[in-house]
C-alpha cells in the first residue's frame, strides 16, 4: 500500500474520457494528475512509467517523483501536455530551420518571465517533451527579432570573446577534483 504525501493535489484538467491517470510529484512536493495520452508526450516520464510497470490499476497508488522540476513548471507542463495530447504527430523537418506557427494559446502559456522560461526549458529538456521544447525555443528565438548584436548580447547574456577567454583561463587554472 502506497502512502499518499500530505501535499495539495493540483487538478490541472479533469480527464473523463480517459480512465488511466498518473500522479506526478514535483521537487517541491506538489502532486499532479495527468492522463495517459498527455504523459506520453514526455519521453522521460513514459519510459519511467513503462519501466516501473505502472498500469491502470496501480497508477494512482504509485506517484512518480520528479526531482528536477518544481511545481510551477510542472503545472505549465501538465497544462501543455493535456492541451496537446491528441495532436497529430509533427511531420519530420526537411529544413534545418524550424518553420511553424506558434499557436496563440501556447504563446499565452509561455508569456512568463525569462528566469521562469529558462527553468521551464531545463525542465522540458529533462522530461524530453519535443513539442514544448520547440515552442519554448521559438519564444526565445523570437526575442532576437530585429536586434543588433549589442542588443542580443544583453538579451541573451552572451559574454564577449574576451570574457569567454578569461572564463576558460580561470577554469583551466583552477585545481581539479583531486585538488
Amino acid at each position, binding site marked *: 500500500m502506497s502512502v499518499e504525501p500530505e501535499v495539495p493535489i493540483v487538478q490541472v484538467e479533469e480527464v473523463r474520457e480517459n480512465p488511466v491517470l498518473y500522479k506526478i510529484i514535483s521537487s517541491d512536493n506538489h502532486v499532479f494528475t495527468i492522463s495517459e495520452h498527455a504523459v506520453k508526450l514526455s519521453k522521460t516520464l513514459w519510459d519511467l512509467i513503462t519501466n516501473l510497470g505502472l498500469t491502470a490499476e496501480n497508477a494512482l497508488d504509485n506517484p512518480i517523483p520528479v526531482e528536477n522540476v518544481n511545481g510551477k513548471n510542472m503545472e505549465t507542463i501538465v497544462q501543455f501536455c493535456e492541451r496537446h495530447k491528441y495532436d497529430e504527430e509533427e511531420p519530420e523537418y526537411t529544413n534545418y530551420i524550424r518553420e511553424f506557427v506558434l499557436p496563440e494559446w501556447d504563446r499565452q502559456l509561455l508569456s512568463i518571465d525569462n528566469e521562469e522560461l529558462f527553468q521551464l526549458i*531545463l525542465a522540458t529538456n529533462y522530461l524530453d517533451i519535443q513539442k514544448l521544447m520547440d515552442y519554448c525555443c521559438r519564444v526565445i528565438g523570437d526575442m*532576437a527579432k*530585429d536586434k*543588433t548584436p549589442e542588443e542580443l548580447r*544583453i538579451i541573451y547574456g552572451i559574454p564577449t570573446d574576451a570574457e569567454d577567454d578569461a572564463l576558460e583561463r580561470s577554469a583551466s587554472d583552477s585545481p581539479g577534483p583531486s585538488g
Partner: protein
Amino acid sequence: MDNLITCLPGLFRKKKCKIKLSEMPLLVKLLIVQSMELRDLIMLSFCSKKFAKLVGSIPNFPNKMHLRLDRFPTISLFNGDWEDRTSIVQFQFRMSRYGMKHLQPTPDSKKGYPCITAFCGNKSDVAMASILTHLLSVFPNCIIEEIRLGKKKKRIRFKMEKVLSLVPEVNVLDVEMETDPKIFEFIMNNVKVMRNFTKQYYQEPIALEPFSKQLHCTDSILSRGCEWTLPDILLSLNCRHSVFEYHKFVTADLMAFLKKWMSSEGEEMKNIEYLMIAKGTKFDDMAEIDTSKYPDVDFTTGFDIERSDGLLGTIVFEYWNFTFCFYTWHNTGEFVINYYNLPD
C-alpha cells in the same frame, strides 16, 4: 532620493541579462538558433566566436552568396533559389559621419527581403571585406554564387580588390559597363569563374593588353569585347555556349582550337556545344584546309568533323561578317552527316 537609490539596482538588473543562452544545454541552444530567422541568426553570429560557431553548425544554411561591387555594394546571403525572396538577407553599407562601426537591422527593402545596414565610417571597403570574411568563416559551405562588377561611386574611396582578394572562385561573373579595367584584370587574374561569364561591353578607348589565358566556365561565356583575351583561351575552353565578339583572333588560332578539339579526350572540351567568334579581325579564307581533298563538300556553308570518341562538330565560316561558328552534336543519332578530317 532613497527611492531612487533603491530602484537603481533593479533597473540595472533588468538591463543586464534577460535569458542566459550560454548556460543552456547545447542541444537546446541548437534548437533555439534553428528557430530563428536568417537575419537574426547572422546578427547572433556577430556576438562572439562561440555563437558564430553555434550558428555555423546549422548545415547548409545559408548556402549561397551574391556580391555586388558597384555604386551600391552589397552582400546577399540566401538559401536555394535567388528568386525565392523569402530566404534572402542583404548587407548594405553606409558611410557614417562619426565613423561608427555597427550593424543595424533595417526594414525589408522594396525588393521584399530583410537587410542589415553596416555603418562604417568612410571605409566601406574594409567593412565589406571584414563582414565577408566573417560570413565565409561562419558558413564555410556557403558558396559565392555571383559577383556583379560595375562602376563605383565617384569620390568614394572603395578598393574592390580588398573584397575580391577574399574570393577564390565564383560561379557567375557579370561585368557591367564602365567597370574599372584594373579591377576587371584583377578579378580575371585572381578569381576562378566556374560557370557563367558575361561582359557586356568593349573597353574603349582604354584597351588593355590581353592578359587572360583561361576561363573555367562550363555553362556560358558572353564576352562582347575580347580585348582581354589571349588566343590560348580557346585551347582551354570547355564551356557549353561561348560567344566572343570584337576579338583579335586569327585563322591560325581557330585552327589550333579545332585541332585541340579533335585530339582532346575524356572530359576535356567535351562540354562545348556552341562557339561563336564574331565582329573581330577578318579571318583568312580557308586556305589552310585542302578543300580539293573533299570535292563533294560544299565548304562555303560549313563542314563536319568527328572526334575519335564519336562526337561530331560542324564548322561554319561566314566570311561576309567575319564570323566563325562551331557546333557540336552530342550523338543522339538524329543527325546523320558525313564527316571529314581536318588537314594534318
